[in-house]
């Protein structure tokens, strides 16, 4: 091809790219929701003299143009692959892949946040608990604990976090569970741990809190694929997870009450397993206050768990050791309101939090 032809071809292809891009941007139907990113996409802004004069139309249009771009997910994947394989970036938007796992880098340790969390826990204890209540604290390491250092990513000192939390929470007995966990106990594409892999963690907690569990679990596997929260953020081609849940007689017979919405809910909401965040199948996801009653319990022990989302999947494993478990998520309900719903008398109390929440505890009320 001579230079003249090349110039013509270059002009033609460039103009064609712009024209086809414009046509597709304008003509293709627009998605309202991005399943992979789990968020609503920006709509076409309203055109008015006021919105144009104020500049709002233009700034909103920039968001719309990016969100509504044709084949958005494919382009995001091209970007992720280019960043990782061409530029050898160690992460893409803070998400990295290692040994088939996706994880969001968590660094550095936010000591002020750990202090804030422990102060909030102390304040709950002061308000509601007496010396008769047994109080426990356990820290769940996020999966970076098992992936980051080995793969050359920034890694927090998890032992130090546990020590700091144990020292600060001198009102609670610390139960160590990190020694029972490994990377395979977490979903490959999601933040959370796998319920079927943490029965030993539940057993450790129960044993330390002075109760026993049935441990006669039956594992069920959902047919549909589970694409966790990191899958969409990373935009990398990794295989999906399989979502599993365990059943035993106690779980089968217990009743769950959602105080936030005043309704009974199932332990495992299989409809939510098909929704935008399948992990929400465990106790119906982010609900501020839930009570699980175990009518067949051979004990009258009660437990209140102050928890984050990791608590949703472990609580059913603990129910066979209690007559009632209450789960309070004080990110969504102010602790001062709990007295309207929870009787702490004679209850054991467990503060069970992941390092992800403890390191960003500004959400804890």
């Amino acid at each position: 091809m001579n230079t003249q032809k090349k110039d013509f071809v270059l002009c033609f292809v460039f103009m064609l790219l712009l024209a086809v891009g414009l046509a597709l941007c304008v003509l293709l139907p627009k998605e309202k929701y991005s399943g992979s990113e789990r968020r609503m996409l920006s709509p076409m802004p309203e055109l008015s003299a006021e919105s144009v004069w104020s500049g709002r139309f233009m700034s909103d249009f920039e968001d719309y143009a990016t969100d509504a771009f044709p084949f958005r997910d494919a382009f995001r994947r091209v970007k992720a692959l280019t960043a990782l394989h061409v530029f050898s970036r160690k992460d893409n938007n803070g998400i990295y892949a290692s040994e088939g796992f996706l994880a969001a880098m968590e660094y550095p340790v936010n000591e002020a946040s750990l202090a804030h969390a422990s102060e909030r826990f102390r304040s709950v204890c002061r308000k509601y608990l007496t010396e008769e209540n047994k109080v426990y604290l356990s820290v769940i390491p996020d999966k970076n604990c098992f992936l980051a250092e080995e793969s050359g990513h920034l890694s927090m000192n998890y032992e130090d976090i546990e020590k700091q939390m144990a020292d600060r929470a001198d009102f609670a007995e610390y139960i160590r569970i990190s020694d029972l966990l490994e990377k395979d106990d977490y979903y490959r594409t999601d933040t959370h741990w796998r319920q079927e892999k943490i029965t030993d963690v539940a057993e450790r907690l129960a044993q330390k809190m002075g109760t026993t569990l049935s441990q006669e679990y039956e594992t069920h596997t959902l047919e549909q694929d589970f694409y966790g929260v990191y899958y969409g953020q990373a935009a990398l081609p990794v295989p999906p997870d399989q979502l599993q849940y365990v059943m035993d007689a106690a779980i089968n017979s217990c009743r769950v009450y959602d105080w936030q919405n005043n309704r009974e809910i199932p332990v495992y909401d299989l409809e939510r397993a098909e929704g935008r965040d399948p992990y929400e199948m465990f106790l119906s996801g982010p609900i501020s206050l839930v009570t699980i009653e175990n009518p067949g319990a051979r004990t009258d022990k009660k437990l209140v768990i102050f928890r984050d989302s990791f608590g949703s999947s472990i609580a059913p494993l603990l129910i066979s050791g209690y007559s009632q478990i209450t789960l309070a998520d004080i990110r969504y309900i102010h602790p001062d309101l709990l007295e309207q719903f929870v009787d702490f008398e004679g209850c054991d109390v467990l503060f069970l939090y992941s390092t992800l929440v403890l390191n960003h505890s500004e959400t804890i009320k």
Partner: protein
Amino acid sequence: MLFSSISFLYYFLPLALMLYFAVPKRMKNAALLLSSLIFYGWGEPKYVLLMGVSVLLGFGFGLLIERYRKKRTGRIFCMISVSVSLSFLLCFKYADFFLGNVNALTGWKLPLLHLALPIGISFYTFQIISYTVDVYRGEAAQKNLIHLAAYVTMFPQLIAGPIVRYRDIAGQLTQRTHSFQGAAMGIRRFVIGLAKKILIANQLGELCGAFRTSEEKSVLFCWMYAVSFTLHIYFDFSGYSDMAIGLGRVFGFRFMENFNYPYISASITEFWRRWHISLGTWFRDYVYIPLGGNRRGRKRQLMNILLVWMLTGFWHGAAWNFIVWGALFAVLLTAEKLWLLERLEKSRILSHIYTLLLVMISFVIFNAEGMEQACSDLAGLVGAGGIPLVSAEALYALRSFGIVLLAGGIGATPAVRNLAGKITENPAGGRILNLLEPAVLMVLMLVMTAYLVDGSFNPFLYFRF
């Protein structure tokens, strides 16, 4: 509107090109003006009026200056025109700086204006000044308002240069040709500029951002920041200039070059011949030479150099660190002029190290948010304040951005251009390059689109000037 945005690439640009090439020749400047006003209004709808007033005043004063050029009145009109243009700049860009400093010195509490900086005001004001001064110096005034407005507001170079001088472009406003060859050159330049911006500058900007937010400063991290910002500002700004020059070429204009591999310079004097050429030559022709240049003795010349470089620094931003940045170059250029230049010529390697080191230090000052941060960043380079030599974050950043830094380092030299030149010298190599070039450029476009769709880091540094 950013060149590196979906709204520009896939909405504005195709529509602007269609409009421009669809209208007859006599309407092309009007089409360009309309596109430029939409482009500017997209980001600053209210400030379109300010720009319009500036253009109208420039047009009117141009006619008056031409009419009275040979009389004293012409000089007065020229001075009024320059003063009015500068007053807009002073009001919108520098008022709060002066008020703040007066308050700090006197203890007064004069209220600050808090005016938003109109994008590109530094660039289009200088273009209007160049127009009226050129007319005063003998250039024919533009009789067609649309032609002049199209020149001042031309969207490819409106908001971040290069500063196109009227006398360089006056002929092209009315008589320019369009060809596939010119358009292809422009497209090539545009795509390369976009790649410099999106693939290199934005990623280096992420590294600078990571340094700024890090609580684990270390000597290594401070040096990585200095290196990455030095590369970042080059790829960001020269990328924009490439895009501007490329788009101008598609529309039939030939803008002056703005960068010529500045980091291969062997002295600061050479660096400023290669860096932001349009600004350097503007200050030379419209400030340094009118002040007397080197024609009134060494002492006056050195004073002129100091003044011009402090103004150059001040042009970049209304803050003391920019003035110090400019003054630093004044001192260095003076030192080179007086005795250093001869010594630098003795060792090419040492002179490169000297130049890069000082340029890097200057950009650390340049990018600081005030002198306090500048001093702290500079202190970090020598480990002052008890910071460690290395930190985990620095090592991670080095591993994660190593390739980008390497690509930036190589891309800042003419190595790639020279390699391409060598390949094209061979007929077979030339044929292969011809065949590959359109495909490579289009793949680059798609990859850059992917980066934009992913919505990564994307501000242009020179928009704030």
